């Protein structure tokens, strides 16, 4: 997987790539996929289609039942003491199966000193790879009265296990399983369309896996509840919020639930821009981590 030397350079390169994609000939535009605008969700921090923090039952890209589709995404969350960067890519076959990969890099910023003084560890970032698959079991989020239901898995591999191991994590890899339902209710709120999503996730991951899997307080799978709602102001703008419950496996530091408030702009099937305010709670002894999230996604 490509590593970019500087996040800004990388974002700029990506933006120009997207812009180039926006101005291709109309004949090529029809190839993006046939699903209705903004119904592929955006790319989550774990690569699966959804919102920012929570995977939804929607599959990425715009592929409908006779089409292939793909997505590329770059995301960045800057909270008080950490920065999370994500590069993700996904493929969708026939709006039936989504396969995704993502690389997360967590810059430890201020935690570097805690690790050095407390554990004698010199580490300034944690990296994790996530391989995801999601299958649409039944339904269509727009057209089926009972919505769309999907089952997914995210296999996560921590690439820098020294720090997670030192603070009590049991394993350097793990697999999350989730079951998700999504439904768009037409003209539900002042004539606007309302998107509702619920997800149940079985997981052993600490802070999504960035701090390893399992711990001294709990080492088994637990079921976590996640939810997202959004209102389509029109077919280009979606306003919403998400909530993600988290396990608390490590006695080293308390882990808290995540939530965010987001706005997504989808000017065209080829491009989606998501901005959010995120609250990640306490992370590895540093309290109340809040900040901004920005994500760019291109579909093809």
């Amino acid at each position, binding site marked *: 997987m490509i590593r970019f030397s500087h996040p800004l350079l990388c974002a700029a390169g990506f933006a120009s790539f997207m812009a180039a994609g926006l101005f291709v000939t109309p004949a090529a535009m029809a190839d993006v996929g046939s699903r209705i605008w903004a119904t592929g969700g955006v790319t989550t921090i774990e690569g699966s289609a959804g919102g920012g923090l929570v995977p939804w039952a929607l599959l990425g890209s715009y592929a*409908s039942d006779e089409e292939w589709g793909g997505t590329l995404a770059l995301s960045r969350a800057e909270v008080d003491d950490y920065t999370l960067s994500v590069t993700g890519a996904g493929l969708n076959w026939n709006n039936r199966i989504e396969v995704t990969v993502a690389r997360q890099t967590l810059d430890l910023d201020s935690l570097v000193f805690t690790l050095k003084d407390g554990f004698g560890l010199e580490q300034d970032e944690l990296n994790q790879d996530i391989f995801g698959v999601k299958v649409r079991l039944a339904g269509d989020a727009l057209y089926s009265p009972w919505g769309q239901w999907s089952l997914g898995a995210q296999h996560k591999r921590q690439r820098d296990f020294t720090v997670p191991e030192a603070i009590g994590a049991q394993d350097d890899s793990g697999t999350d399983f989730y079951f998700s339902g999504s439904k768009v209710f037409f003209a539900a709120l002042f004539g606007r369309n309302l998107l509702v999503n619920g997800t149940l996730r079985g997981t052993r991951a600490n802070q999504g896996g960035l701090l390893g899997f399992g711990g001294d307080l709990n080492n088994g799978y637990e079921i976590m509840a996640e939810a997202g709602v959004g209102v389509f102001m029109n077919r280009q703008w979606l306003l919403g919020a998400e909530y993600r419950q988290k396990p608390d496996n490590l006695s080293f530091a308390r882990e808290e*639930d995540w939530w965010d408030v987001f706005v997504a702009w989808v000017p065209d099937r080829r491009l989606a821009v998501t901005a959010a305010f995120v609250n990640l709670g306490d992370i590895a002894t540093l309290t109340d981590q809040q900040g901004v999230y920005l994500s760019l996604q291109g579909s093809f």
Partner: protein
Amino acid sequence: MRPSKTKMYMAALMIMASLLAGGCQSLHNESDNSLYLQLGERAGIADVVEDLLYLIVDDERINEQFKGMDVAQFHRNLTDQLCELSGGPCKYTGREMRELHAAMGITDTQFNALAENLILAMEDNNIPTAAQNRLIKRLLPLYPDIRHL
């Protein structure tokens, strides 16, 4: 499991239950004709359908399915159908939807293409977003008939 976890678990189950319950909403047709008026009455709907026809002809995904049809009759029937669905004083006199689409083998891709063209045709005629959404909501019950599910 902490008490707050149990609470969250319940909340998630309730969200999922509400998703399921959404499917059971009765399809009560509002007796008022406000949607019909927002669409510009029969003349406004006829303009939308005309633009929709131009979009269909140019759309490689679906134009094959419309080959050989009587354009004037299609225009009249669909206009009447949307007029009636939106609460207007019209009566759809065409064939029953399920029977009409039975042999066509309409895919989701084609259904999405038609939905996209309808939205674009409504946008071209400056139909407000809320009215677009309300009309699509009333068309949703036709999905299983058109897709022959």
